[in-house]
């Protein structure tokens, strides 16, 4: 105990001496000694490093270059001992960076060797990796050399996530892809080489994530351009609905009707959303209601310098203009625009591995990814089977996989709907746990979600502005937030769900044309006076089934 007290006294004395010296503007060797003492015990005492930097800067001005070199080299030695004690100290690494940059005659090779030593002890020490990147930059080590460095590291040990990461930053510098559409990350020749390298890695150790994540990145492609994906106009509602490729603010939207800019107020489909992929506006009454008139609409998204035209012809009560999901390769666009032959060959390789390693989740996920890139509808059966296996081999994440599978099934249904050129979206008995891509369903008039595992129709459901009929029997729905201000909705069937209170049905009151509602098999039907309560809540519903 006396030892500790003594230590404390020494510490406090040294610390106070340091501060008073600093306060007095003293920058001498003794100050260096004192700070050294303290920093050896506590390398994260940031103020002391700052003081030390002041001392060194000052000494630089009073010593010649050789002496300064010696002082800084001594500093580097001191830092090495600090780093030996704590290789993850922010203070130490930051200071070393500072010193290296100021050294009159830096020895970058030595710095790289230090990094090598440090990484050989812990190849995931990101402080060291970050420092190495700085050294490389300062000493203009050619990217090619660094790439060879990663070759060596990966060659000796495929399981080196940090090396793969570094590689991902180096490659695009050395072998850039083309910026013109289709945009690609790397030039094709290099890409094929990388595929080979990473395949070696995951064939050697299929359980190591590093290679799989890297592979996914290689296969992936950049975000596509932002655009207006659909513009829809309805004479009856005198309303325009616009769908975008991603959620936006309404700030930069401009509507032009027959050459005249219109002063309209844009609103999102549900008060929850300030940011939404779908926006609606109402036209002044009488503007387009006469069916004998033709009108031309343009929606401008001024921020992105893009627009969409839509012509509303005589005799037509509605009109729209859109790019289909197929046109946009919307769902395939997870992956790059590699030649089909390349993707086929990749799929073949990974399938081979899967035969050897049937329980490997990375393999299964990658196969699913490649199948979706090649032919989502054609591979639907296999994809579902692989998801089943995936949920068994990685049961910890089975809920996530169910969600992912739901997403893919919805994508397939959208594709089928578009091929058939109908406005009916039907996906029943598919174990759907979640709804998504609802922004793609702006034009749908009939939706069938029966016999799934849905728990709610979320606020995003309100994007289905053309909906006339909803069938969602045999789910576990307890929340109808998204059945909100749907102007054309006439029929809703919710047999055998979990709607339990009248409050749950509140959103339906916002749908003016609702006339038929089937609530059989829901707990709410047991509520006292349910018929009269509903008559009050939903007066337009003439056909109520309880």
């Amino acid at each position: 105990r006396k030892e500790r007290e003594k230590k404390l006294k020494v510490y406090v004395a040294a610390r106070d001496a340091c501060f008073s010296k600093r306060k007095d503007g003293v920058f001498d060797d003794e100050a260096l000694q004192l700070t050294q003492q303290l920093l050896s015990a506590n390398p994260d005492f940031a103020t002391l490093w700052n003081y030390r930097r002041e001392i060194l800067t000052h000494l630089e001005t009073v010593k010649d270059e050789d002496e300064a070199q010696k002082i800084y080299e001594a500093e580097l030695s001191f830092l090495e001992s600090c780093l030996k004690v704590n290789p993850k100290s922010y203070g130490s690494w930051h200071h070393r960076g500072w010193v290296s940059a100021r050294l009159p005659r830096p020895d970058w090779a030595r710095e790289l060797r230090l990094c090598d030593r440090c990484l050989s002890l812990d190849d995931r020490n990101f402080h060291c990796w970050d420092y190495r990147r700085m050294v490389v930059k300062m000493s203009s080590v050619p990217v090619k050399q660094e790439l060879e460095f990663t070759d060596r590291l990966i060659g000796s040990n495929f399981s080196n996530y940090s090396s793969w990461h570094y590689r991902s930053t180096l490659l695009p510098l050395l072998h850039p892809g083309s910026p013109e559409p289709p945009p690609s990350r790397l030039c094709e020749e290099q890409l094929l080489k990388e595929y080979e390298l990473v395949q070696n890695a995951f064939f050697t150790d299929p359980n190591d994530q590093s290679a799989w994540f890297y592979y996914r990145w290689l296969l992936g492609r950049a975000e596509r351009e932002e655009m207006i994906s659909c513009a829809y106009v309805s004479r009856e509602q005198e309303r325009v609905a616009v769908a975008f490729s991603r959620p936006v603010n309404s700030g930069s939207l401009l509507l032009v009707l027959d050459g005249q800019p219109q002063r309209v107020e844009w609103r999102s489909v549900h008060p929850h959303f300030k940011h939404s992929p779908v926006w609606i506006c109402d036209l002044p009454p009488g503007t387009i209601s006469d069916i004998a008139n033709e009108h031309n609409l343009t929606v401008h998204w001024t921020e992105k310098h893009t627009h969409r035209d839509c012509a509303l012809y005589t005799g037509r009560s509605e009109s729209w203009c859109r790019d289909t999901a197929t046109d946009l390769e919307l769902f395939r666009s997870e992956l790059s625009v590699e030649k089909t032959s390349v993707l086929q060959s990749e799929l073949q390789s990974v399938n081979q591995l899967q035969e050897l390693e049937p329980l490997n989740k990375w393999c299964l996920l990658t196969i699913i990814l490649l199948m979706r890139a090649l032919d989502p509808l054609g591979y639907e059966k296999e994809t579902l089977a692989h998801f089943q296996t995936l949920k068994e081999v990685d049961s910890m994440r089975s809920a996530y996989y169910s969600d992912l599978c739901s997403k893919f099934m919805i994508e397939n249904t959208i594709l089928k709907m578009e091929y058939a050129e109908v406005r009916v979206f039907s996906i029943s008995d598919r174990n759907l746990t979640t709804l998504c891509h609802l922004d793609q369903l702006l034009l749908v008039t009939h939706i069938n979600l029966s016999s799934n595992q849905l728990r709610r129709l979320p606020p995003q459901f309100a994007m289905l502005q053309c909906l006339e009929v909803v069938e969602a029997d045999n789910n576990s729905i307890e929340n109808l937030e998204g059945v909100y201000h749907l102007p054309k909705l006439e029929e809703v069937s919710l047999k055998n769900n979990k709607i339990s209170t009248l409050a749950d049905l509140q959103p339906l009151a916002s749908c003016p044309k609702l006339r038929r509602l089937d609530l059989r098999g829901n707990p709410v039907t047991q509520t006292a006076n349910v018929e009269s309560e509903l008559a009050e809540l939903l007066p337009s519903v003439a056909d109520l089934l309880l």
Partner: protein
Amino acid sequence: MAEEENQFEEFEQIDFLKDRHVRFFQRTLQVLPERYASLETTRLSILFFALSGLDVLDALEVVDSKVMIEWIYSQQVLPTQDKSNLNRGGFRGSAHIGIPYSTKGPGVLHPYDSGHVAMTYTGLCSLLILGDDLSRVNKEAVLAGLKVLQIEDGSFYAVPEGSENDIRFIYCAASICYMLDDWSGMDTQKAIEYIRGSLSYDNAFGQGAGRESHGGWTYCAIASLCLMGRLDEALSPRELNRIRRWCIMRQQSGFHGRPNKPVDTCYSFWVGATLELLDVFQFTHFEKNRSFILSTQDRLVGGFAKWPDSHPDPLHAYLGLCGLSLIGEPDLRKVHPALNITQRAFQHLQQLQQTWRDNAGSCVGRQ
């Protein structure tokens, strides 16, 4: 779902030793062993772990709030008479610089005294947890002190003298602005650009551009964007889905912070809270997560360690509790995933902010 019901049944198997953890934090508030000496400069953050930990345990009554509040305020860098040190505002980690004890202004000018952004963040949180009304926080100084820490690329230093700069301090800054309900302390657009620039090839966030993805920095990125209210603006739905995927894959039993690293208790919060903010926490396996966290519980001394059979420390003890709270462990208060304080403390903040708005409103009225 039937799966969840089974998970709740198995909760009873490993017991959670609440009292031990209360005592662990109490001891943390008293004396720490020598090996903690290096944390002296960040003492206020240790205090935060203990206080927030006790809050999560619903055991704040063991704390002498008044004493604590005074100590915290004594770490505030008070403006001098002529306000020349305004841009050094904020809270210190501790008294290690040697400024004479004072909780009321004017302050003493000291060339090396300044706030530290992480200490300001944990200081404000701690005051809220203790029920303080922040009336003695000099907002002008705190925000001025914060503003000078932001650099061209949008990231922040920790102290005005300079230090490393990265995404951690953006999170601290965003939390400070959020709590004080005043975003003049930072350029949010620049911060968002830095955050976006930190998105790595594998769809998670590094400390900065070109740096390796990490669960802790991903939390800082997502939580900052949520606090700023700009999550959907800054990241596309596709990017968000990919980030969700990277994060979901971090669960091994508990969570790790990076691929191929061992699981560590604190990531049950860092990654767990990120998943919660991204609305997909319900897809994680609660029972495996719980089993891991409890395997790092120290049955003798209380607290949690990063790994089983390791020494517990305040950070892991606190974040272990937060991890358990996220999965709904009974008897633990719920935690606000972005601000990292209990919902109870958050509600106190909301009430304070409402009062500030009302007062501001009534001032305008009088004009």
